């Protein structure tokens, strides 16, 4: 018996203390409302402005009326009581914020009108989405975007009030226009704490973004046609899904990424409506009360992580693997690509949607990339999990341990957005070192080895090689061969290894065989005979980035 009553007692105590909190909040609220000009509040309420909008327009601190469990009805009734206002209707969408601060919206997927009682309830649906998506987060950043119509309404209303009440003493005191809080700020303030509680992490400048995008069918009244058309386009884009699609294991680079859910750029539009010139016009429009709306805004809320980057250096051991996915007429060239090998092994571990591969330069499919490797960046979109150092090491071992040994990875690690700059910094100046297997039409002499090794920082002129002339401009490019060294091959008099270090952008194959005389000088012309290249390997990409510390 006692067991039954005890829990009940505990919960009632909890309820009481909770009620106690609420009471304290309510008293604070009543205290804040009391000094307001009641006749103005009544007028606002009568033209359909919601309670929170009224309070924020007067610049009242958010923490007073944004308590997460404050419901619409509670706030509304307090205001009405204090000011003895009798509302005619049960509920209507706020004529300024269009329901945003009433936590009411039209659900994008089902097209039904949703009315959340409190900020806490709203935060609950958002938190559910985050959990559904399976994101592992250590923080979140909340972004809200509202349709320009709301700002127009607000602007209209404020100018009207300015005109009507300028002379009144309270107006001077309150400096209405500058003190009012924006809809966005109020909404963010209201939902942030409950979200923090539900998700168990703090709101901060995080790579994990929660975006609420409100749009309204009725585009703003004054905006020109072009912007309206723009709005419609963006609405189409944002009206796709609530949650981002799941990744297909086979898929590679699709063009979708988080930024496709672009928020409506209110900045440029609000610029027009800032105080000043427009006031005259807007207040004229607002002779009659702001039009009451029958529908709330559409809301699309999404959560995604901004791109994470993994950097490192890759090696290519095969002469039949291209750097990036290469398909001609539905047929793949080569047996695999560096991009796919690295990307497909990392993407599932990060549980991302897509990956994009970037490298500092490239080599032909039949050229191996050896030595220190070539710097690369792998961009992972909407990763559900940011890999730890340990996991990154595992990724590296996994790729290096693949049975076919086509590709290797070094110094793999997570890097911030500065990875971009690092990789492309001075790319054109970086030198590359190669080893070519060369054949000449006569036996190699010791003199030849001397001749070659004496050439330092030699300038060559290369016309666009015939093999790329179909897609590149016909130009003559001057390049520098920094040094060369011949290494004899045991058992052969006409084959040898040519080690050379050149300026970025030099076509090595053409430098060896001369490309029908279009590269001058060439190895052949220097040695006074015909020279052919059989194999080429890149042995060093002389860049400082992405090396072990």
């Amino acid at each position: 018996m006692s067991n039954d009553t005890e829990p009940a007692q505990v919960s009632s105590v909890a309820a009481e203390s909770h009620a106690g909190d609420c009471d304290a909040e309510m008293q604070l609220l009543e205290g804040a409302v009391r000094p307001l000009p009641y006749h103005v509040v009544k007028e606002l309420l009568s033209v359909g402005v919601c309670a929170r909008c009224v309070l924020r327009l007067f610049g009242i601190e958010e923490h007073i009326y944004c308590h997460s469990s404050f419901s619409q009805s509670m706030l509304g009734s307090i205001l009405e009581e204090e000011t003895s206002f009798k509302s005619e209707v049960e509920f209507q969408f706020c004529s300024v914020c269009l329901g945003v601060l009433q936590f009411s919206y039209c659900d994008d997927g089902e097209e039904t009108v949703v009315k959340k009682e409190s900020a806490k309830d709203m935060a609950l649906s958002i938190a559910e989405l985050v959990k559904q998506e399976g994101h592992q987060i250590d923080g979140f950043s909340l972004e809200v975007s509202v349709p320009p119509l709301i700002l127009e309404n607000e602007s209209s209303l404020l100018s009207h009030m300015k005109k009507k009440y300028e002379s009144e003493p309270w107006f001077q005191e309150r400096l209405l226009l500058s003190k009012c809080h924006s809809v966005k700020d109020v909404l963010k303030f209201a939902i942030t704490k409950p979200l923090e509680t539900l998700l168990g992490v703090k709101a901060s400048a995080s790579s994990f973004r929660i975006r609420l995008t409100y749009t309204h069918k009725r585009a703003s009244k004054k905006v020109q046609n072009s912007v309206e058309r723009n709005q419609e386009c963006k609405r189409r884009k944002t009206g796709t899904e609530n949650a981002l699609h799941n990744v297909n294991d086979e898929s590679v680079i699709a063009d979708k990424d988080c930024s496709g859910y672009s928020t409506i750029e209110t900045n440029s539009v609000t610029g027009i409506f800032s105080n000043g010139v427009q006031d005259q016009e807007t207040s004229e429009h607002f002779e009659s009360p702001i039009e009451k709306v029958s529908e709330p805004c559409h809301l699309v809320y999404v959560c995604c992580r901004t791109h994470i980057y993994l950097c490192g250096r890759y090696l290519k051991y095969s002469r039949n693997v291209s750097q990036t996915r290469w398909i001609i007429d539905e047929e793949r060239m080569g047996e695999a690509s560096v991009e796919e090998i690295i990307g497909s092994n990392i993407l599932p571990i990060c549980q991302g949607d897509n990956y994009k591969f970037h490298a500092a330069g490239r080599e032909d499919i039949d050229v191996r990339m050896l030595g220190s490797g070539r710097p690369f960046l792998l961009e992972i979109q909407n990763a559900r999990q940011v890999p730890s150092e340990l996991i990154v090491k595992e990724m590296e071992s996994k790729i290096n341990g693949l049975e076919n040994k086509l590709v290797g990875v070094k110094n793999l690690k997570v890097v911030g957005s500065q990875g971009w700059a690092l990789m492309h910094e001075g790319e054109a100046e970086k030198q590359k070192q190669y080893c070519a297997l060369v054949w000449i039409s006569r036996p190699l002499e010791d003199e030849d080895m001397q001749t070659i090794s004496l050439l330092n920082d030699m300038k060559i002129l290369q016309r666009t090689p015939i093999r790329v002339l179909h897609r590149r401009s016909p130009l003559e490019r001057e390049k520098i061969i920094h040094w060369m060294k011949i290494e004899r091959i045991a058992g052969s008099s006409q084959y040898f290894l040519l080690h050379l270090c050149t300026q970025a952008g030099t076509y090595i194959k053409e430098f060896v065989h001369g490309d029908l005389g279009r590269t001058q000088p060439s190895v052949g012309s220097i040695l006074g005979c015909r020279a052919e290249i059989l194999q080429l390997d890149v042995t060093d990409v002389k860049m400082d980035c992405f090396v072990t510390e």
Partner: protein
Amino acid sequence: MSDDMVDRTRKLEETTVSNSLHEEEEEEEERPVREKAEYEEEELHKLLVPDVSQLPPTPPSAVETNFVSYFAPDFMKPGNDQYVYRHANGLCVVGLASTHLAFKDKGGITAVDFNVGKSDRSSMKVTGKRKRNAQHFESNTALCKVCTGDDSYVVRCCVKGSLLEVNDRLIKQPELLNSSADREGYIAIIMPKPADWLKVKTSLLSLEEFKILRELC
């Protein structure tokens, strides 16, 4: 060369010996950095050196590897044998085949003049990826005139298409035609439209067919 081999084997032996010694004393991670770098160099070098037994005595030339050779015997005139090398990307390099009449003249070719027809072919400037300003020529359009001590011969496009480049080195060095007409002595580079190529291809001979025709085997 055998010295090299001895050197290399000795080096390898040295490192293997020192390797095993080190293994007894310290663990992999503690191997000094310098030795690791040397080890990596050795490993890299092993990858670079080819297996000599697999190397052909004479490898295929760059032209053989990258182009398919076609021939136009007696093009527009008896003895006017020209070649067309077609690259996989569609570009065609045209030039004089070794059996061209001009090479039979005493002293060989002495001068090349690109100023034929309506314009000087060596003066055009083709720019950009789209190859703007390239002149569109028919297969019988004249490219240049080749002179020997006795005679002069007109060289034509053989392929209908846009003229991308002429070998202007021939102006100063016409002897390139005598020494290597099939490589550095090429005449021009032409870009035909796919449909135009298919049409002209039917009238050209393959290398084998040409050899048989001219009894070059």
